[in-house]
Structures are given as structure tokens and as C-alpha cells.
């Protein structure tokens, strides 16, 4: 067993050296041959979860590199435990299936706080150990029994400055006003955020949104259905905007800044009435890495990790200390900065954890 671990580590170091260009391809392949590993699987970092590592289940892409550099590096330095990734996307159904099957291969899921409510209730998650994790290092109300918010993302909208030269849309009410602001819009197709936006457009106070009045929101959404297209992923939302398919589009707030930069400011992000969403870490029941995962979550709460994640992914820190240390230029893009806080709404994970099925199905019935 020790030998296997030794070979695995040697190989991983070899793989890192090879990727960094410090080792020749031939030497690396020879090393793989000696260890009896296929190089592809080592390079991909593919390995079943063992007690000697923590596996994070997330959505891959940039997110993988960012989590590795922001949290993984510090965590491995402190504990000697490497961080690995499963990038297949931890949707509720997949977590439930994994736990029910009894073959749990992930330790921590980069999920939503409403997942913690829904899956905690059905016994699919481990309770968090708040003697290791710090409840005060997150937004009030976002430290729950089965999950804690580490970063915030959110829903906001962007508009085409060339489409509206005589006055820009500034609120969800403008977004839903197709007479005053003609043009195609885009909304998220799985209800989340879209329902809140519709209610704010209809005059509901941003701190009195929950419990959501689904029927009222749907009415508002169907009213502009002919002028709306719907996206299912962040990249689709991005493409709809930069390809000029929409004059106004809902986006994940953390992506707004890069779209502004990419289009040289042609598309502008509106932070007024943005909805802050608690992205959360949750632990599947019976995770292979055991209690060590709690230390990992605590590392993710540290100020350097939080600031690095913001720099890398644009996700807003939840640790108040990290927010306080943020540079002036970053403040407008941090959804809970002092300037943004009075304008934004906060998502209620408990409502969504209990009502996702009704809300999503009502929304799909209305838009299809």
C-alpha cells in the first residue's frame, strides 16, 4: 500500500514537472512505464478518492485551476493532503445517485446552499463540523447544518449601450419593459434568479421577496415571452450577449466584468437589484476523505484563499475580513461590497431548498 502511494506521488510529481516543462517527455513516459500507469490518466489527475486525498466535485474548466491555486495549494502545504477534482458537475440528482449507490467518490461539492437544504433533509449529506469551520466567516444566515457559503455569485443583467443611447435600463422593471426598451432579452431557463427578477420588476421589495409568489412572477415572465430567449449555462449566457443575440441579458454577475472588458465596454453590467446567490460547500454522506474535508473547508474560508478566488473567478468572498481587504477597483464587482449592499437582494436558500421542484416546473411550463 505504501509502495503504491509512493509510486503515485512520484508519478504526480513527475506529471507536474512534465507539464511545467521541467521533465522530458521520454523520461516521464519511462516513469509511467515503471509505475505501470497510463500517462493519460495520471496527467488528467484521475484517481479514485482514497483517504490520502480530498476530491472536490465541481464544474471544471477555469474553476478547477482557480480552486487548485487559491485553496488547494495552501491546504496541501498545511496538511500534506493533495486536492483532486471530479469535474462532472455536482447537481442534486447526481449527488443523490452517488450517495444512494453507496459508492461515494467525492469529498466536497462546489454546489449551492439550497442543495444543502434539500439534500440535508433527505440524509444525503454529512453535517459540517463547526468546531473546525468558522460560522462567523460567512454572510449572516449562510452557515447551515449541512452546508456553508464560501463564495457568492449572483444574477444581474447586462445591456447593449448602443441599443439604448438615450438612457440606459437601470432596474428589473426596465428589463421587463419592452415598450420603453425594445429588443430581445435573455433569462436563466431553470427559474432561479429569473423569478426574483420578475418579482422585483413587478414592484416587490428586494428584502420581501420570500416566500416567492410563483404565479405573480410567472405572469410577468410570460408577458415578455415573445421577446425572451433562455439560457442554460454561463457560457450560453455569455455568447448570447457578445454575439449580439440580445439587447439585454441576464448573466451570472461574476462573469459581467469579463464581458465588459471583452466588448470594450459596449455591454454594461447593472448591479442594481442583483440577486446574490450563496455558492456553498457540501459534503456527500460517507465521503471517502472523512473528517479532513472540514479542514479543507476551513482553508477555503481564509482571507488569502477568498481573495484569490475573487481574482481568479470573480466570485465574491463571504468572509467579511476578505471583503474589507478588497482593492477599491474591485469593489463595484463584489456583490456584497459596502456600495452594492444597499442595492442587492439576498437569496433565501431555505425557500429554494424546499420549493425547487414546484418553481422550476412552473417556470418550464410557462416558457415552453
Amino acid at each position, binding site marked *: 500500500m505504501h509502495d503504491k502511494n509512493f509510486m503515485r506521488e512520484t508519478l504526480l510529481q513527475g506529471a507536474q514537472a512534465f507539464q511545467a516543462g521541467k521533465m522530458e517527455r521520454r523520461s516521464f513516459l519511462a516513469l509511467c512505464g515503471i509505475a505501470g500507469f497510463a500517462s493519460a490518466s495520471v496527467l488528467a489527475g484521475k484517481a479514485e478518492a482514497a483517504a490520502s486525498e480530498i476530491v472536490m466535485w465541481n464544474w471544471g474548466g477555469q474553476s478547477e485551476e482557480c480552486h487548485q491555486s487559491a485553496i488547494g495549494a495552501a491546504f496541501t502545504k498545511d496538511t500534506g493532503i493533495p486536492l483532486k477534482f471530479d469535474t462532472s458537475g455536482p447537481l442534486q440528482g447526481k449527488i443523490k445517485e452517488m450517495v444512494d449507490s453507496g459508492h461515494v467518490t467525492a469529498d466536497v461539492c462546489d454546489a449551492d446552499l439550497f442543495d444543502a437544504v434539500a439534500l440535508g433533509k433527505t440524509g444525503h449529506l454529512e453535517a459540517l463540523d463547526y468546531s473546525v469551520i468558522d460560522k462567523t466567516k460567512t454572510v449572516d444566515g449562510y452557515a447551515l447544518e449541512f452546508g456553508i457559503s464560501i463564495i457568492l455569485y449572483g444574477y444581474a443583467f447586462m445591456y447593449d449601450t448602443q441599443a439604448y443611447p438615450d438612457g440606459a435600463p437601470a432596474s428589473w422593471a426596465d428589463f421587463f419593459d419592452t415598450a420603453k426598451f425594445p429588443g*430581445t432579452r435573455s433569462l436563466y431557463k*431553470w427559474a432561479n434568479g429569473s423569478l426574483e427578477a420578475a418579482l422585483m420588476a413587478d414592484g416587490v421589495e428586494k428584502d420581501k421577496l420570500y416566500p416567492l409568489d410563483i404565479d405573480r412572477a410567472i405572469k410577468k415572465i410570460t408577458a415578455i415571452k415573445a421577446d425572451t430567449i433562455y439560457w442554460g449555462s454561463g457560457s450560453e449566457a455569455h455568447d448570447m450577449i457578445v454575439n449580439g*443575440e440580445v439587447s439585454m441579458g441576464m448573466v451570472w454577475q461574476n462573469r459581467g466584468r469579463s464581458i465588459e472588458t471583452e466588448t470594450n465596454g459596449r455591454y454594461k453590467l447593472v448591479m442594481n437589484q442583483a440577486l446574490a446567490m450563496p455558492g456553498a460547500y457540501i459534503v456527500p454522506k460517507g465521503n471517502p476523505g472523512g473528517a479532513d474535508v472540514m479542514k479543507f473547508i476551513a482553508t477555503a474560508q481564509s482571507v488569502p484563499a477568498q481573495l484569490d478566488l475573487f481574482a481568479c473567478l470573480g466570485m465574491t468572498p463571504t468572509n467579511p475580513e476578505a471583503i474589507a481587504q478588497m482593492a477599491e477597483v474591485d469593489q463595484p464587482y463584489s456583490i456584497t461590497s459596502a456600495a452594492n449592499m444597499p442595492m442587492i437582494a439576498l437569496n433565501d436558500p431555505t425557500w429554494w431548498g424546499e420549493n425547487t421542484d414546484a418553481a422550476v416546473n412552473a417556470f418550464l411550463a410557462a416558457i415552453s
Partner: protein
Amino acid sequence: MRLPLKSGWLLVLPFLLLVGGLFLGPILNVLWISVTDPAPGFGNYAQLGSSDTLRRILWTTLRVCVICTAFSVILGYSIAYAMVHAAGPAQSRMVGLLLISFWISVLVRTFSWLMLLGRNGVVNSGLEALGIITAPIAFMRNELGVLIGMVHYMVPYAVLPIFAAMQSIDGRVVQASRSLGGSGAQTFWRIYLPLTKPGIVAASLVVFIINLGFYVIPAVLGGGKVLMVAEYISVQVLITLQWGTAAMLAAILLFGVLALMFLMSRFMKLSTVFGGART
């Protein structure tokens, strides 16, 4: 020496077990979930009667599949006809092009269509530059977009069985028809088309059945408004956790396909359609 039948079955047995375990097992599991989750009984199936949404999704799926199948088979028939009658080198070039199109991933196709036919796509900006249109035509992010994407994807699936059926036709029957005074049109409608019927039926079945499970193309090119059953099942499994509803819809698809095969088998021998022994 010929082995008796019994030992032949013995040789096949491991594969039968594999198919039974890995294929029938999960299907039975899905059927089981459809009558037990969230409560035992036929509650999930009863939703079909009570839910307008489910009926509308099934209707959208059926409508899109039927239209797509019709266009794919007509286009596929024309292409196969041209291929069969092309000379050797031209024919292999055509087969090559067809196979290349066959191998392009569905995501690449989907995004290519957006580049070509999107609001600011090549076609719309070209037509606008030429002054033919003043506002972009909405090709994409609607049912038309879904149909364009799906037909493009399915044409190679339609061509191959029809091409095979056309190749096996004895050219002399066409000559015989012409020499007996049949016109070109008569020969086609009364001799050629009936002879290619097994190919058409096979192509229609294959295209229709694959269409039923389409996910990516409707999800992206439909702009969220063309909700077909596969995407709805995926949402119920992954997001709303209503596995009973998802399993019920999957079962409906399965039984729908089986019923279709049964209906077809009343009219023709299915083994002919799928290239089995002719009698």
C-alpha cells in the same frame, strides 16, 4: 464437426448475461421507479391525464420528431439516389463527405448553426448587406432552429439504409419497365420506389427513434422555448429530483418505440428492414 445447438447457446451465454445485467437490469429499475416513486401505484402515469405541461411536452416532441423524420428521409432519399447513380470515384467522394458530416460532434454542429444562422450570423448579415432584408430573420432559438439542426444531424442516418436498399436493386427491372413502355415517372413510382420501401421504413424508424431522445440541439437552438421530453427528463432527474416523473416519461418513450415497431411489423417483415435474411 458441427456443435449441437445447446453448446452454441452456452457460448453465447456470457454475452446474454452481460446484456441482461447491464441493459435489462437498469431498464427494469427505471420501470420500477416509475411505479414506486414517490408513492407506489400509477400516480406518475395519472399525471399524463392531469398535466397540460406533460401533454404539451410530449406533443412538441412528437411534432418535431415527425417533421424532422419526414425532411430527413426525403433529403436522405435524394442524396442516396444521387450516390447510387454516381460513377465510382464520385460515389466514394460522396460517401466520404457523408461520413465526415456523420462524425462531426453535435456540439460543434450546434454552435456552427448559431454562427451561420444566428441573429448576427453570416447569412443574416449577408442578406442585410445586400439589402434583401432589413431586420434579421429568426432562424435560430425557436422551433425552426431545432428542426434545421436536427434534420442536418439526421440526414446521414437516413441516407445509409436507403443507399443500401438502392444498391441491392437489380438495375434490369428498371430497364424492363422502360422497354415495356413505362415512362420515367411511372418507372420510379411503380417500380423503383416500392423496391426501396424497406430502406425508407428502416431510415424512418432509425431517424424517428434517435430524434425522440434529442437533448443538446433542442436545448440550445430552441432558446429554451422548445422543451422536448429528453431535456425535461434530465431536469426532473438532476434538478427537481422527481425521479418518478422522469422514469414514467422514459417508460412512455420506451413503450412508444416498442408500439411503433409492433405496428410496423404488422405491415412488413422487420428483419427485411434491418437487413436480415430475405425470404
